[in-house]
C-alpha cells in the first residue's frame, strides 16, 4: 500500500486535496527574486526559487516548526512529539506586549483560560482543557529550565509576577497539553509548562530595562472613571538589569547570565459597592463594607545561570508580596499574600558513548507562603478575641533531590530510543495553617491550640520510555512512571502515543495517558480550630485522558484540531466532618472551645469530573511581516452532571501583528475572549449567578530606536470590555435573598505602559 493510499484511507478527501497542494509546493520550480532583494548578497538569482515572490514555503515551514523536548524529555520536532506541544517565543512575547507567563498563555496559548483572582483572594486559577479549580495552579506543572516551580509543600504555582522570572529573561515558553505525569510525576495533570530562559549566545552583553505603566481608576460599576472619593491612578513600574559574559575556566569554555528585576505595582483605585450585611467584617464606626479599594504589589526576582563545560548551575530567587484588600476587613493594611523562593540546581549532561547520553540534576528548593487577613467580628475568630483577630496562614517547604536520565539511541538515527531515569527527593515541610492574633493586643489564643506541624517525606520515582519509529511516517511512544511517595503510597502513570505523518506537513496524533497529583503535606494537615479538622490521609487525584489531534500545514497557513476526553477521580475538596471525626479532633485538642460540630469540614477525596472538548488553532502569514493567529476551545466539564463554575463553555484568543522588518518595528493587537460563565461563590448562593462574555484587548507597538543601537521600546494599551471577573464577593444568600451580585473586578480594565530596554554589546 502506498503512502497516498494509506492517507486516503485515513482521512477525508478534502484533507487529501489540501495535502496534495502542500506536496506540490515542494516540487515547484524556483524562480528569480527582485533586484532589490538580491543586491545585498548575490548578483544572481538561484536557479530554484520556489515562487514568484522569492518565498520558499517549504523552507519557511522547516524554520517555523519548533524543536521541543517537554513531552518525551528529548529534542524532537513538534510534529512528532507524543503530545500536543507548542512554543511561545520571546519575539511574540515582545510584540504582543506580554508581561507575565500567565498573560502569554492567555493571549498566545492554546487551551488556557486563566482566572485572575488576585483582587479577591490569593492565587491564580489556571484552567486548561476544560478543567479549572480554585487550586492555585495545582493541576499544572510549571518548570523553569526544567526545574519544577510547584511548591513542594502546597503544590501550588503562580505563573504571574510571583513566578519570579523577569519577562526579558524568557527565551521561549514550551507548553505540552494533556497528562504529563509519565515524565514528570505529580501535578502534570492537564499541562506541563516549561519556561526556558535566555543564556549567553555570542559575546558579552549588559542589559537594562525600565518600564512605567499607568492604570485608570474605576468606579462602583467597575468601569474606568467614576469620581469616587480617594480615587487614584495606578502606577506600575519595573527596573531590570542583567548581563552575560563568556569566559574560560580550567580550559573549559563557560558563560554566565544574570537577570535581576524590581517590579512594583501601586494599584489604581477600584470601587466596591458598599454592602450593609452583618456577615461582613466592619471596623468600629463603619456602617458598610466597601468603598474605594487599592493595593500594592512588589515582586523582586533574580535568575542566574553559569555554565562551565558540561556543567550548568542555576539559581533563582524571588519574593512576591501583594495586598489583599477585599478579604476580611475592607482594605486592611495587615492583609497581604507573600510568596518567596530560593531555588538552585546543578546539572550535568554528557555522552557516555555515541549511543548513550546521561543527564544528572541535583536540585534544592526553599519556598515559603504566607497569607494574612484581618477580621473585626468575633464570629470569625477564636474564643476571647471579642474585638476581632488577625489571621495568618503560613507554610514553608525545603526539598532536595537528585534526578538522572539515561537516553539510549540504539540505532543512532532516533528510530529506536530508550529513556530510563529515576528521581529521589526529600521534603521537609513546616506549616502553621491557622494562627489567630487578637486584633487589639496581638495575643495568641488562651485556650485553643493553633495547628502546627513539621513533616519529613520522601519521594522516589523510576520512569521508562521507548520511542519506536519503524517507518518514516510512524512514531510510537510508550512509557510509564512509578512514583512511590510517603505522602500517599504508589502510583503508576502510563502513556501510549502514536504519531502518523502520512505526507509532509500533516500530523495525526493519538494518545492515552494517565496522570496524578499528590495530596500535599499542606492539604493533609490543613486544619483550623474554628472550622476545619485535618484529613491526615488522602489518595492522589487521578486523570485518564484520550486525545486525538490533526495538524495540517499549507503554504502560509497551519492549523490544528484536537479533541480530548478526560476522566478525573478523587478530586480533593472539603466536605462536612462527621461527628466521629469531630470527636476525635476534640480529643486531640484541635477544636476551639467555641467550635460547633455542624460547622466543621475536612479535606477528602470527593468528586469525579469528566470533560469532553476540543481545541482549534491556526496561524497564517499571508504576506511577509503579517501574522494572524488564534485558538478556540470548546469544553464541557461536569461534576455529577452539573457544570463547574468559572470555566466557560467556549474561550480562546486571536491576534494580528505586522512587522515592518524582522526584529523591527511591529504593530500588534491581541485579544482574549470567553463565553458566559457560572460565577464562583465562596458562600452558598441561593441561585446560580452567571457572568457575561469576556473580551480583553491589547494593542502594542514595539521596535528598535534606530539612533541608539541596542535600544528598543515597547508601548502597550489594554482594555477589558467586561470589567467583572467570574468570582462573587456577595450575592443572594438565604439571609439576604435580594442581595445583588457583587463581582470582583478586573484590577485595571484600562491601562497602558511604556518600556525601554537596552542591550549593550561589550
Amino acid at each position, binding site marked *: 500500500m502506498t503512502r497516498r493510499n494509506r492517507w486516503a484511507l485515513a482521512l477525508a478527501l478534502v484533507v487529501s486535496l489540501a495535502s496534495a497542494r502542500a506536496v506540490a509546493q515542494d516540487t515547484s520550480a524556483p524562480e528569480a527574486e527582485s533586484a532589490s532583494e538580491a543586491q545585498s548578497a548575490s548578483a544572481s538569482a538561484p536557479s530554484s526559487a520556489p515562487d514568484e515572490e522569492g518565498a520558499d514555503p517549504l523552507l519557511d515551514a*522547516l524554520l517555523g516548526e519548533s524543536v521541543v523536548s517537554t513531552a518525551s524529555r528529548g529534542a524532537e520536532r513538534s510534529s512528532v512529539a507524543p503530545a500536543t506541544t507548542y512554543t511561545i517565543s520571546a519575539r511574540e512575547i515582545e510584540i504582543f506586549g506580554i508581561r507575565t507567563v500567565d498573560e502569554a498563555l492567555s493571549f498566545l496559548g492554546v487551551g488556557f483560560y486563566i482566572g485572575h483572582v488576585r483582587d479577591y483572594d490569593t492565587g491564580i486559577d489556571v484552567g486548561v482543557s476544560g478543567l479549572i479549580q480554585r487550586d492555585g495552579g495545582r493541576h499544572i506543572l510549571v518548570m523553569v529550565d526544567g526545574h519544577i516551580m510547584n511548591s513542594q509543600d502546597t503544590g501550588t504555582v503562580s505563573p504571574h509576577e510571583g513566578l519570579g522570572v523577569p519577562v526579558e529573561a524568557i527565551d521561549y515558553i514550551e507548553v505540552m497539553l494533556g497528562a504529563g505525569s509519565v515524565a514528570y510525576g505529580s501535578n502534570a495533570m492537564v499541562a506541563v509548562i516549561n519556561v526556558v530562559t535566555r543564556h549567553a549566545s555570542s559575546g558579552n552583553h549588559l542589559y537594562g530595562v525600565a518600564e512605567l505603566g499607568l492604570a485608570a481608576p474605576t468606579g462602583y460599576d467597575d468601569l474606568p472613571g467614576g469620581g469616587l472619593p480617594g480615587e487614584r491612578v495606578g502606577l506600575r513600574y519595573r527596573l531590570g538589569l542583567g548581563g552575560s559574559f563568556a569566559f574560560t575556566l580550567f580550559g573549559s569554555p563557560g558563560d554566565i547570565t544574570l537577570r535581576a528585576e524590581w517590579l512594583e505595582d501601586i494599584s489604581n483605585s477600584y470601587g466596591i459597592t458598599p454592602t450593609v450585611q452583618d456577615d461582613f467584617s466592619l471596623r468600629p464606626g463603619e456602617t458598610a463594607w466597601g468603598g474605594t479599594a487599592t493595593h500594592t504589589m512588589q515582586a523582586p526576582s533574580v535568575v542566574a545561570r553559569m555554565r562551565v563545560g558540561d556543567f550548568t548551575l542555576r539559581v533563582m530567587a524571588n519574593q512576591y508580596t501583594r495586598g489583599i484588600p477585599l478579604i476580611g476587613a475592607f482594605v486592611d493594611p495587615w492583609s497581604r499574600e507573600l510568596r518567596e523562593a530560593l531555588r538552585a540546581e546543578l546539572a550535568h549532561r554528557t*555522552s557516555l558513548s555515541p549511543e548513550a547520553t546521561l543527564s544528572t540534576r541535583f536540585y534544592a528548593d526553599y519556598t515559603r507562603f504566607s497569607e494574612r487577613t484581618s477580621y473585626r467580628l468575633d464570629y470569625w475568630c477564636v474564643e476571647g478575641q471579642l474585638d476581632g483577630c488577625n489571621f495568618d496562614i503560613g507554610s514553608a517547604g525545603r526539598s532536595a533531590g537528585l534526578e538522572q536520565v539515561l537516553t539510549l539511541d540504539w540505532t543512532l538515527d532516533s528510530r529506536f530510543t530508550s529513556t530510563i531515569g529515576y528521581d529521589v527527593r526529600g521534603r521537609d515541610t513546616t506549616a502553621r495553617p491557622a494562627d489567630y492574633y487578637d486584633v487589639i493586643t496581638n495575643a495568641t489564643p488562651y485556650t485553643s491550640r493553633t495547628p502546627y506541624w513539621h513533616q519529613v517525606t520522601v519521594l522516589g520515582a523510576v520512569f521508562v520510555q521507548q520511542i519506536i519509529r519503524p517507518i518514516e511516517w510512524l512514531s510510537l511512544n510508550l512509557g510509564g512512571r512509578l512514583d512511590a511517595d510517603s505522602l500517599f503510597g504508589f502510583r503508576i502513570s502510563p502513556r501510549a502515543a502514536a504519531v502518523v505523518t502520512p505526507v509532509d506537513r500533516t500530523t495525526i496524533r493519538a494518545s492515552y495517558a494517565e496522570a496524578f497529583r499528590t495530596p500535599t503535606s499542606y492539604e493533609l494537615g490543613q486544619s483550623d480550630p474554628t472550622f476545619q479538622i485535618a484529613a491526615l490521609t488522602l489518595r492522589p487525584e487521578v486523570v485518564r485522558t484520550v486525545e486525538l489531534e490533526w495538524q495540517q500545514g499549507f503554504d502560509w497557513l497551519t492549523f490544528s484540531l484536537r479533541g480530548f476526553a478526560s476522566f478525573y477521580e478523587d478530586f480533593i475538596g472539603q466536605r462536612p466532618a462527621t461527628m466521629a471525626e469531630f470527636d476525635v479532633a476534640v480529643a486531640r485538642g484541635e477544636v476551639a472551645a467555641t467550635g460547633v460540630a455542624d460547622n466543621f469540614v475536612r479535606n477528602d477525596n470527593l468528586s469525579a469530573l469528566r470533560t469532553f472538548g476540543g481545541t482549534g488553532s491556526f496561524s497564517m502569514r499571508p504576506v511577509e511581516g503579517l501574522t494572524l493567529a488564534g485558538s478556540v476551545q470548546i469544553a464541557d466539564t461536569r461534576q455529577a452532571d452539573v457544570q463547574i463554575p468559572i470555566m466557560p463553555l467556549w474561550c480562546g484568543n486571536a491576534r494580528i501583528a505586522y512587522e515592518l522588518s*524582522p526584529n523591527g518595528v511591529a504593530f500588534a493587537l491581541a485579544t482574549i475572549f470567553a463565553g458566559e460563565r457560572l460565577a464562583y461563590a465562596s458562600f452558598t448562593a441561593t441561585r446560580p449567578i452567571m457572568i457575561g462574555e469576556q473580551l480583553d484587548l491589547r494593542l502594542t507597538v514595539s521596535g528598535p530606536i534606530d539612533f541608539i543601537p541596542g535600544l528598543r521600546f515597547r508601548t502597550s494599551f489594554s482594555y477589558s470590555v467586561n470589567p467583572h471577573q467570574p468570582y462573587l464577593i456577595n450575592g443572594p444568600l438565604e439571609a439576604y435573598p435580594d442581595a445583588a451580585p457583587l463581582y470582583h473586578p478586573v484590577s485595571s480594565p484600562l491601562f497602558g505602559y511604556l518600556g525601554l530596554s537596552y542591550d549593550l554589546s561589550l
Partner: protein
Amino acid sequence: MLGLALGLALGAPIDGAADEVTVPAGLQVQLLDRVLRYEHGFPTAAGSAVVLVVVRPGAPESERVAVQLRTAFTSSRTIADRAVELAVHQYRSAARLGRRARTRHASVVYLSAGLGAEVGAIASALPSPGVVLVSSVGADVDRGATLAFELVSARPTIAVNLPRATAQQLQFSAHVLRVARVVR
C-alpha cells in the same frame, strides 16, 4: 545512590559540550537541502555533490551526530537536486582534512560536534572556491564556518558567515539572508 550518581556524572568523558548540537540532524539536512538551492552555483554544478562528514574520533557526541547526519543524507539521497556522494572523515588535522576535501572534490564539508576549536583552521585549510563549510553547531559560524544551524526560541535558524561565504566565492540569495542570522 549519591555516590553512584556523582561517579556516573563526573566520571563521564568531557567533550566540550558547551557547544551543543540543538537542531536535530535530520532537520539540518532538510534545511541544508533548501538553503543550497539559493546558492548561486551549487544547484547547477556538474556531477554529484560530495559531502564530507567530519567526526572527531573518541568524542561520543561527535560520533553520534555524524551517524545521524550520514543516515539523514542517505535517506534524502539528493541535496539541492544533486545526488549526494557521502564520505566520513575522521578528523586528525585541518591540513589533512583540507587535502581530503581537495582530492575528493568535496562540495560540502559538514562538521559534527566538538570541533569548535578547529573551525578557524579548517576554514583556512579548505580549498577555495566553492566548498561549503557547514557545522551542526550554531556557534561555529562565528568561528569561521560558512553555514550552521541553531535554535532561537526553540525554532531552527540558519546562521551564515558572510565574509567566509564571500571568501569561498559562495553567493547566497537575499531570501536566505533575510531569514538567517548573518555574521558580517
